[in-house]
């Protein structure tokens, strides 16, 4: 069956998805939550009663993480379908 699968392209595209998601992952946690925190506290509108950078570190980044994983699911499932890796239950 693997004749129909192009595993090289599949792998390259999964790497792209992973790199894209991890860039956002690093940006929201290390970037917004730690490195640029003071700048964001001062320059960005606060989230409710919390300064933006502080909020990113305590809640915002976690919310983005959850969203990232649901996006990951969608993108990978789409990629699986495109390359014919979506037959039920055959590992």
């Amino acid at each position, binding site marked *: *069956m*693997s*004749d129909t*699968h*192009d*595993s*090289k392209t*599949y*792998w390259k595209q*999964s790497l792209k*998805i*992973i790199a894209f*998601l*991890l860039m956002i*992952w690093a940006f929201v*946690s*290390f970037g917004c*939550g*730690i*490195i640029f*925190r*003071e700048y964001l*506290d001062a320059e960005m509108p*606060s*989230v*409710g*009663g*919390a*300064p933006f950078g*502080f*909020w990113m*570190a*305590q*809640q915002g*980044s*976690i*919310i983005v*993480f*959850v969203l*990232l*994983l*649901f996006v*990951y*699911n969608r993108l*990978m*499932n789409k990629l*699986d379908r495109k*390359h014919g*890796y*979506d*037959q039920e*239950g*055959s*590992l």
Partner: protein
Amino acid sequence: MTQDTWNFIFIGITFVVYIFIAIRSRAASTQEFYVAGRGVSPLANGMATAADWMSAATFISMAGLIASTGYAGSRFLMGWTGGFVLLTVLIVPYLRKFKKFTVPDFLGDRFYSNAARFVAVVCAIFICLTYIMGQMRGVGLVFSRLFDISISLGVIIGSCIVFCYAALGGMKGITYTQVAQYCVMVFAYTIPAIFISVMLTGNVIPQLGFIGDYIKDGAENAVPLLEKLNGLNKELGFAQYTGGVKDKWDFFCITAALMFGTAGLPHVIVRFFTVKDVKAVRQSASWTLAFIAIIYLTAPAVGSFARTNLIEEIHNQEYKSAPAWFTGWENRDLIAWVDKNDDGKIQYFGDGAAFAGKPAFKLDSDGESLRGSYNERLLTNDISPGRNELFYERDILVMANPEIAELPEWVIALVMAGCIAAALSTAAGLLLVLSTSVSHDLLKCIVKPDLNDKQELMWARIASFGALVVAAYFGINPPAEFVAKTVAFAFGLACSSFFPTIVLGIFTKRINKEGAIAGMICGIGFTLGYIIYFQFYANHQDYWFNFLENGTGVSPEGIGFIGMLINFMVAYFVSMLTPPPPQDVQDMVESIRVPQGAGAASDH
């Protein structure tokens, strides 16, 4: 009904449920014992993993830690959730496709050597043992506080319960009890938070109350809760709640070590071997993070509420009219007050501890506490010069929350059941990895490859009994200071050994056994050496890698991140200088990169 009756009812019911599930799901084969027959639904596995991941420490201590450190507490919030992103996109789908039982299985096969397998087994056992000790201790503490029994008896009762379902049911028994435990935990954590949020901010959703307005002084005086808290902290001489950290680079390293460490913890990775296929793994991992996030988004709210409440209700209050929970926890040794200025009021200031060390209460010849002029318990500690008169154990913030909010007794019982569920679920997951490491990785794969399935299963049960005895022993006789310090070991090790080696094993075909073994040994050696040196030998805190002006350098908590970079570099350079891995290993790597089928190269 009294509080004791409620406690008995709640904890009794949860235990009956756990044991009932255990008896229903006894494992008959190693396949069922190690990976629950690979038939768990993604949603159930998500809940089970969330319960497995959230330990007694997360449940009881994290909110207290955030309350007392403010922004600096974010390292746990980001570290322990961000790790799941790494785990999901870099590790678990590929290891699931590999179709084996354990993490050492993968490393042993990918690096075609029993030496790699052996290093991995030793790391896995070490990580899990350091972790499980704290859990058993936690179970013992909660029991002893609830039922007035000794900690030792509490640890033994807890061990028996865990043994029931972990050794009989294996992964299958653990998974379904963990689902039940997650449900207990999430209610126990959020219900008190909801009540308190309504009291302080008028918002039913505590996660939003955190960023809402503080309305207890009346609606016309509403100010943002965090602003209020900053004001209170400033007034009393504490650092700003939303303020910065001393050394950003150290903070960065600690957060990174927690993240990469989380992604390399073996007891979390193996949980994802229990679902049907790669697609289910991805789904399950997303559910896991969503379930964890419910509690982790509540934690900063609980922390800020608890701190506001504590200051508002306690500071400058007459001791005689202090709320009941205050004296209640004082009677349980977790709160102490010394009236330095003799005004009968409790003063809470940020100018250092009220006295040296933990409270040591004055007792009369019958063992009863001696009381002072306001009926407070007297202390024998050396009194510090500052104005601060209050000592409290951070851990009480979560446990005292329902009492502070004057919630009904059943809520308090629920919180207690939640604490026990958190400790038991994590202990069971760790126990499984320990027993699998011995029966499968050591015996079956290295020492006695001719074991049949029945014998292997028997060995797994014997090993889990052995591991439990060791864990219970350390729970009863904790190497006191040691336990707190070894948490840094567990994450540091996972971060500097498993994470980089697994990632390299999946994402490069060129890394060979020489590179992987050298990388693991250098990473672990460096991390362990650094932690041991600074935790046990050096009497100073002039940490290395101090890049910032007025910085502190990288503390042992964060050194795993540097260890990981060393592992990556050593593994890469050694592999480049030695021959590439054999063709069949390269084919294997090709095949785990795709979710189904054998992959292009091994299509023979």
